[in-house]
């Protein structure tokens, strides 16, 4: 990897922080015990994951025993949704049209199995229709699952307002929040937002891949998906990923320690990138809102007349890593369902690029993107049959 690479795909995954690597290492070769073992190696491992649980719990105002560790965001979403649905047996599940596939496909499967699914519309900035939500919640509604900060366009839903609507309409409805993209970037208080289930993933916050967490409010009925040993209070069998869990907690700790400093820096660079693209490149559409209802690390633009994978690869040739909502780049060749939900026509969504920043993103990097991007867009537009000015 060339030294000068500019990594702006932090919603896909992040660099592991050096402090996190340092925290992990002793758990590979010294404290390598299995937390289920009774001897000292085991007790040390158990203490390590108990500490990590405490750390994660504190970041969202939860109690230690309400955190279970998983293998990542997808597993957390699966346990929350399948677990709750199977424990409740039948009923209505309410979600949105802009969920990550880990929620979207899970809910789809439950719909196939006979659950009654309602998918809320969003407006053109990606905000959920709260009146529609309120009227959708019935006596039979068992679960409302909402993505906190959208992974493609960065829209932040008001989970406190949503939690209050859910619980005042039907207190027996579980409220699940997918906070994989928002965790440690947007403050979360599970009590204030009346959340019952909340998904987190380590590798999105400079922790290692292969570990995540699920907050499960005390008393929430969940069917267990992965069976085996009695780990994680019988909610998730399998030898715990001790180094991963320790690293995840370290990453959360680092991010929370200077929360305002790093989110303010990202917000500044985000807004600078948005302003410059809007100024320097014609025929662009910012997807998602502006201001404090946008995830501090997210910029998403559609560049009319051209296609995302081509933009991505040209940026890649310049050492800049981004992602796209283009159909061409997806494995099923379908355009982004999130961009469709905000009303973007297919040809426009075809040319969308997501830049996602991290605490490590520098002003120089953003300046360089601002310098390089207009030329690439121009070059590709010169190729395009759709470009009216050709």
């Amino acid at each position, binding site marked *: 990897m060339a030294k000068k690479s500019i990594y702006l795909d932090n919603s896909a995954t992040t660099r592991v922080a050096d402090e996190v690597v340092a925290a992990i290492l002793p758990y590979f070769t010294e404290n390598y015990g299995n937390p289920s073992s009774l001897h000292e190696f085991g007790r040390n491992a158990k203490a390590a994951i108990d500490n990590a649980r405490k750390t994660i719990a504190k970041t969202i105002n939860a109690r230690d025993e309400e955190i279970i560790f998983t293998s990542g965001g997808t597993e957390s979403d699966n346990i929350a949704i399948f677990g709750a649905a199977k424990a409740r047996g039948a009923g209505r599940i309410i979600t949105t049209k802009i969920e990550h596939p880990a929620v979207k496909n899970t809910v789809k499967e439950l719909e196939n199995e006979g659950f009654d699914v309602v998918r809320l519309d969003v407006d053109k900035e990606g905000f959920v229709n709260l009146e529609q939500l309120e009227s959708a919640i019935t006596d039979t509604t068992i679960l409302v699952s909402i993505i906190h900060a959208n992974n493609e366009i960065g829209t932040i839903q008001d989970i406190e307002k949503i939690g209050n609507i859910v619980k005042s309409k039907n207190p027996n409805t579980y409220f699940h929040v997918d906070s994989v993209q928002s965790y440690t970037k947007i403050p979360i208080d599970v009590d204030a937002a009346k959340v019952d289930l909340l998904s987190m993933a380590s590798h999105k916050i400079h922790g290692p891949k292969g570990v995540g967490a699920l907050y499960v409010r005390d008393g929430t009925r969940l069917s267990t998906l992965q069976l085996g040993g009695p780990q994680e209070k019988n909610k998730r069998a399998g030898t715990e990923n001790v180094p991963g869990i320790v690293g995840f907690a370290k990453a959360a700790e680092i991010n929370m320690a200077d929360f305002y400093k790093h989110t303010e820096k990202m917000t500044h660079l985000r807004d600078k990138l948005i302003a410059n693209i809007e100024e320097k490149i014609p025929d662009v559409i910012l997807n998602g809102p502006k201001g404090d209802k946008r995830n501090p690390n997210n910029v998403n633009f559609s560049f009319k007349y051209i*296609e995302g*994978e081509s933009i991505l690869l*040209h940026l890649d040739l310049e050492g800049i890593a981004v992602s796209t909502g283009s159909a*061409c780049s997806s494995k099923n*060749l379908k355009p982004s369902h999130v961009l469709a939900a905000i009303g973007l026509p297919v*040809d426009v969504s075809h040319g969308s690029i997501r830049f996602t920043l991290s605490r490590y993103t520098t002003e120089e990097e953003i300046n360089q993107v601002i310098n390089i991007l207009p030329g690439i867009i121009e070059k590709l537009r010169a*190729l395009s*049959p*759709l470009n009216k000015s050709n």
Partner: protein
Amino acid sequence: MIYSNKVLEHFKNPKNVGEIKDADGIGEVGNPICGDTMTLYIKVKDKRIKDIKFQTFGCAAAIASSSMLTELAKGKTIADAKKITRDAVADELGGLPPIKMHCSNLATDALKKAIDDYERKHK
């Protein structure tokens, strides 16, 4: 999506890009699968493709296939140009990822349409 070096070369520096204002034949195709579109222009002299240009809205594979096709077709007789298959385009590019094979289809379809257009106008 791992592209061959040849694909990346044609993607970075596509040949025969643009419009031919007084084209003898024009082929326009849209890809129903992923939404890519392509326009191909040919200039014909003595039953030979004397000049060829394209505009493509699409991914690297679509752009490279378009570029490669124009290279293959340029200078060929109409009869020979008709024989260019999508596999020939893909092969010349050192292969395409399976999911992107439809992109080389797009290019050969556009050429066929341009030749049809030419033949319709010049019969």
